[in-house]
């Protein structure tokens, strides 16, 4: 009896030690910030483009007489939420939503916020004063999203998610003007050193992507179309989404159904199959045609691309560095020989 108790105690102690060591390795092992820096460039560029497009209709979406007026937007945030109606909510009637546009209400103020936001996103993309700019970029991104209810879609969710995690780690430690300026100041400075906060930022992105895909996948179980294999067809045959005509899939019902089923299985099991190193390249390989399909056949280029940027969190820094070196080797002009 004593032996069994001793064995159990030692087993539990060992399990606890393993769990703590695993947790520490997962979250706190320093990593090369190359992947985080590449995500900064791509997400920063997408934030810049997204907000440049807002410029065309800035007052129509953010002004006092916008499509969704400040009053309608506030109603959206303030109507009793399900949790308030169904349960005794201690915060009943209170909204914790905030936006710079709560303060910037006149035309001049709105344009001032917008111009500073565009400069911020541009600085984030090139990586100048990155630590400060990353925080400002998240504040701006959230401000637009909280003010533009009714005009939002998946792109905005991923934009704000990536901006949030870019604040966490040193996303300007490489591939940035910050790094270039630091090297100019001190030529003996080496490559960016591994960083624990870079690892935390990447882990948060990875886990968030898993949550996104899991709920996107299980959400598809509710209706009939992803069961009867016409889910994908609903996207390609819908005239409002269609950008490239893929209605030829009507002549290939088995292919259409296979792609629909593959989409659901891939989304549901992403949160498990992306972690084993042997399966990760295959999961990422499927992500590319899936999201490029959304981008080019369903006219949501920005959404398709930003989902691929999110998937980049699963690409190792070594692979990012190798790809960047390869690209720069290819674009560098070949040395000329004297003749």
């Amino acid at each position, binding site marked *: 009896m004593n032996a069994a108790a001793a064995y159990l105690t030692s087993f539990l102690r060992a399990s606890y030690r393993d769990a703590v060591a695993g947790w520490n390795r997962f979250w706190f092992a320093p990593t090369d910030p190359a992947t985080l820096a590449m995500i900064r460039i791509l997400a920063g560029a997408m934030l810049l483009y997204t907000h440049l497009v807002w410029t065309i209709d800035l007052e129509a979406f953010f002004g006092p007489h916008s499509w969704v007026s400040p*009053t309608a937007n506030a*109603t959206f945030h303030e109507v009793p939420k*399900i949790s*308030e*109606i169904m349960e005794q909510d201690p915060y009943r009637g209170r909204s914790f939503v905030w936006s710079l546009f709560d303060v910037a209400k006149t035309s001049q103020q709105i344009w001032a916020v917008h111009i500073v936001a565009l400069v911020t996103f541009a600085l984030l993309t090139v990586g100048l004063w990155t630590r400060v700019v990353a925080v400002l970029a998240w504040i701006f991104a959230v401000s637009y999203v909280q003010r533009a209810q009714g005009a939002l*879609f998946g792109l905005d969710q991923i934009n704000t998610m990536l901006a949030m995690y870019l604040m966490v780690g040193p996303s300007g430690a490489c591939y940035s003007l910050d790094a270039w300026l630091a090297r100019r100041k001190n030529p003996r400075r080496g490559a960016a050193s591994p960083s624990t906060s870079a690892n935390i930022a990447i882990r948060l992105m990875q886990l968030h992507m898993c949550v996104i895909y899991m709920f996107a996948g299980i959400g598809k179980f509710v209706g009939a179309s992803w069961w009867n294999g016409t889910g994908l067809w609903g996207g390609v045959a819908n*005239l409002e989404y269609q950008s490239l005509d893929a209605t030829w899939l009507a002549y290939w019902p088995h292919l259409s159904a296979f792609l629909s089923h593959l989409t659901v299985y891939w989304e549901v099991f992403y949160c498990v199959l992306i972690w084993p190193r042997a399966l990760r390249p295959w999961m990422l390989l499927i992500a590319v045609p899936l999201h490029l399909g959304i981008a080019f056949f369903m006219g*949501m*280029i920005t959404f398709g691309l930003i989902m691929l940027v999110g998937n980049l969190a699963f690409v190792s820094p070594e692979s990012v560095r190798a790809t960047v070196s390869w690209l720069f080797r290819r674009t560098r002009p070949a040395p000329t020989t004297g003749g």
Partner: protein
Amino acid sequence: METSSRPKADDRHQACCPWPNELRIVVSLLLALHVSAIYVGPFSMGAMGVTSPLALTLRRTYRPYLEAISTQYQGYQFFNEPGPSHLIRYELEFADGREMVTGKLPDIDEHWPRLRYHRHFMLTETAYTLVSRTAPPTPPPGLEVGTPAYESWRQFRDADAALSRAFLKSYAEHLMSVHGASLVRLYGIERRYPTPEEVVDGIRPGDKRFVSEELLDTFTIDIEVVSP
């Protein structure tokens, strides 16, 4: 005296996790709270308006944080159940006798680049979602006035009605402000897509038979409803 060159467990641990224990514990707690929050966001949104009491309690607990970091509406229901698309056609009348102006949202010819088109498309889809989910003012059969179930139904209904009304009114006010119109009629257009069999039979997605239209609301300059 130990002279072994093998790294001790503490050294190995230090190399793996250079942060001090106290900092790691604090950060671990924050990470656990954050990761659970990003799970609770979509989990508590439920499906088809159905959520468990546990999900509601979790949502109530995390709501301040989810709202503050702008993840409160993240249900990640990306293209869950494809259905017809919804557009808005509008008619504008003018007090000074100008000819009636008509337009539609989204307009692929006007709204370029594609992201701009999609923003306007989301406006019309949101309007449809809000209008369609608003229950009629009379309670469903079997629901007795004064009961907790009725009270809950009434609160949902009133909230949905207020929201759909606020959005349509806002769209009308915007059109009045831009065009100087004195009356706005908003029509909801629904366009279903063809089945694969219909396409094989030569019917195209743009076929007029897939389109239906109904008047959503009429607004005058003082934003009074004339007729639904």
